[in-house]
């Protein structure tokens, strides 16, 4: 087991407050959009419907328009044909009397212009076909008063540049002097004047006011229909989405409650649809989970019970044995030498046995998840001094130096003082065991706003690469051949690591062969807070220089 910790980095710089404030409503909307499935369904349905109905509406409009206009154009062309045959009849009737072409032209066009004015169309009669460059705008044309002759499209004029041109029509916009442009149909046809035998082109311009109005009406109707349709579709989408989303939301709530530990929560199943089947599967999953968790809890309870029983059953006889051993040990002066030695061995080995039992029980309590914290505010510097004082009897005979380096301010953290003291005892005992001759063991303490740390440094044999993770393994020994002078159980560091984890803290080791080792305990200042960094470096300052 290893403890890994990353140095905390400050988060990315926040944007300026002003920008955030203006963006907040937007962000809230985006959040709503991301979170609400229903809103997304409704909005996308409305957009799709709008696009579809727009397309259909446009097509309908185009169809209506072309239908209306073509129908009208046919009527107009027929009317023009009527008009012309009428005119030709008149001309042929008058042909013998008047041979003056301009007079004949007037005779021809004036009744038509008159009729046009009463019926609401405009007439233009161009000069004889074949006059080069003879365009309406050049003058010489007869037309309905007030009409702007540019209303006749040039393309249509060009069609009648030669004689024998078939009648033709096209759309145009009709301009009148001092009036607005209105869309219309221009129909052209040629007549031959008997007077000079030349062809003259007659243009009839029919305004499309009526058709325009009809189209506008249809468009308005379509728009209203589309609007109503959109609202209805949005409503329908909202209702349909609700039918799906409501059970999903219920499922989410149940899942949240399950996650919060209310394992008996289930979804209500109604009907046989997909959602009902989802609910059934969901409930099955919840039941399985609940069973698994119950089994685990039961196992854990049995384990805890067993630990507690073993603890009690073993401790009572051990106490008796221990006291008996003590009595024998105290009386060893009165025994013969082998028996006295036996009493001594019994005494020391009982110590080891007891320590091992205590550590084993502690480990099994961690494994059973039965370890609980008894938190209070503790000054770690005080704990360090206390632990150092307790270990002085061990260091003095070996002329080891044991110093506490603490800052002026108290290093207070919310911890279980018995566990932290045990960690420190283990670390210091460990350091003493591995220290060299006349070594200096340093206990450094420091804290900042978020964490408090204690590091125990020795300059002894150190740790080989890769051993820094293994030191926390149960019964692990750096060198199996090493003597067990301090009678350590081999569980001390494993228990310490569990203790550190129980606090949400770190216990890490650094070491290098020949340069000693450092163990660093980092604990959050407040229980439950996440650790991001340690106030003390894991690699000691003096060791860093040698590395570089």
């Amino acid at each position: 087991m290893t403890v890994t910790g990353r140095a905390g980095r400050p988060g990315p710089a926040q944007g300026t407050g002003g920008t955030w404030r203006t963006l907040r409503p937007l962000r809230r909307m985006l959040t709503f959009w991301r979170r609400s499935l229903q809103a997304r369904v409704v909005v996308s349905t409305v957009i799709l419907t709008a696009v579809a109905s727009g397309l259909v509406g446009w097509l309908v409009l185009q169809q209506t328009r072309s239908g209306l206009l073509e129908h009208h154009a046919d009527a107009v062309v027929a009317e023009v044909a009527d008009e012309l045959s009428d005119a030709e009849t008149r001309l042929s009737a008058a042909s013998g009397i008047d041979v003056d072409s301009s007079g004949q032209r007037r005779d021809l066009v004036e009744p038509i212009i008159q009729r046009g004015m009463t019926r609401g169309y405009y007439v233009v009669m161009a000069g004889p076909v074949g006059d080069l460059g003879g365009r309406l705008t050049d003058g010489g044309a007869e037309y309905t008063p007030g009409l702007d002759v540019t209303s006749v499209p040039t393309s249509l004029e060009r069609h009648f540049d030669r004689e024998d041109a078939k009648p033709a029509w096209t759309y145009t916009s009709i301009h009148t002097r001092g009036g607005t442009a209105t869309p219309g149909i221009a129909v052209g046809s040629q007549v031959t004047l008997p007077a000079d035998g030349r062809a003259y082109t007659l243009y009839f311009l029919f305004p499309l006011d009526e058709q325009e109005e009809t189209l506008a009406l249809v468009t308005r109707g379509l728009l209203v229909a589309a609007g109503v349709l959109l609202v209805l579709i949005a409503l329908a989408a909202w209702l349909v989405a609700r039918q799906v989303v409501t059970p999903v939301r219920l499922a989410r709530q149940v899942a949240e409650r399950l996650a919060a530990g209310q394992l008996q929560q289930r979804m209500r199943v109604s009907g046989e649809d997909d959602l009902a089947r989802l609910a059934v599967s969901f409930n099955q999953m919840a039941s399985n989970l609940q069973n698994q968790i119950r089994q685990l809890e039961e196992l854990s309870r049995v384990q805890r019970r067993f630990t507690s029983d073993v603890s009690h059953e073993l401790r009572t006889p051990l106490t008796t044995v221990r006291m008996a051993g003590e009595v024998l040990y105290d009386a060893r002066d009165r025994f013969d030498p082998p028996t006295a030695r036996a009493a001594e061995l019994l005494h020391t080995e009982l110590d080891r046995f007891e320590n091992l039992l205590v550590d084993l029980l502690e480990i099994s309590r961690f494994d059973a998840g039965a370890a609980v914290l008894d938190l209070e505010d503790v000054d770690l510097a005080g704990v360090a001094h206390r632990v150092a004082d307790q270990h002085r009897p061990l260091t003095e005979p070996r002329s080891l130096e044991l110093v506490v380096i603490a800052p002026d301010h108290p290093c207070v953290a919310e911890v279980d003082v018995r566990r932290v003291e045990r960690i420190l005892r283990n670390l210091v005992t460990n350091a003493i065991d591995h220290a060299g001759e006349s070594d200096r063991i340093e206990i450094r303490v420091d804290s900042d706003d978020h964490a408090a740390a204690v590091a125990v440094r020795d300059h002894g044999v150190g740790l080989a690469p890769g051993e820094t993770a293994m030191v926390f393994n149960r019964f692990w020994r750096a060198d199996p051949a090493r003597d067990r002078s301090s009678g350590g159980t081999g569980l001390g560091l494993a228990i310490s690591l569990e203790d550190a984890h129980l606090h949400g803290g770190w216990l890490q080791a650094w070491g290098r062969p020949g340069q000693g080792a450092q163990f660093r305990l980092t604990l959050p200042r407040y229980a439950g807070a996440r650790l991001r960094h340690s106030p003390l470096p894991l690699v000691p300052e003096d060791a860093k220089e040698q590395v570089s």
Partner: protein
Amino acid sequence: MSHTAEPTTRGRVLVVDDDASLGEMLAIVLRQESFESYVVTRGDEALDAFHDYRPDVVLLDLMLPGMDGIEVCKQIRHESGVPIVMLTAKGDTVDVVVGLESGADDYVVKPFKPKELVARIRARVRRYDAVPSEQLTIGDLTIDVAGHQVTRGGQPIALTPLEFDLLVCLARKPHQVFSREVLLEQVWGYRHAADTRLVNVHVQRLRSKVEHDPENPEIVVTVRGVGYKAGPA
């Protein structure tokens, strides 16, 4: 298991433990230390033995047949302030705190060293040593140290010897703040730091007896992060 009364005895110890071997062993060790002892193996016999034997200290196991050790502890405490030391097989927080709250003065965790146990017993019978006559005040309380009596306005307040020691310790130096560790050393006789919950639990018990309002203590005042001190006289 007999009422042997020796003139040189340093005190009478009632041992309540269901393990007969341990009881016998305890008797041997206690005799070596010049304590007289009597062993009971059942919880429901403990109270009768307590009445007959009139011990100076009770050693009480928590897991007992007949009657729970906690219950025995409560009943003894109900009628007497005699020092009770729990013998507990579990160092778990809950057991210890429940034991202390039901009236035990101190506890030792099995397997304990005989010397450790004897030190605990000695610390509890120590108070029978002669003390000079002394009159102390703390808050509106008057303490007669030699007479082992605490009075408020002439009315005596019943305290166990341990609670009395705790109060006297604080009252002797009214301006000093005592850390829990210092109190453990001075009142319980621990040379090394021990379980500070002992102090917390007994301060609560003491407050429930001497304070007007235990929620807002005026006699034994908490100094946050440090310990306790006597309230202003």
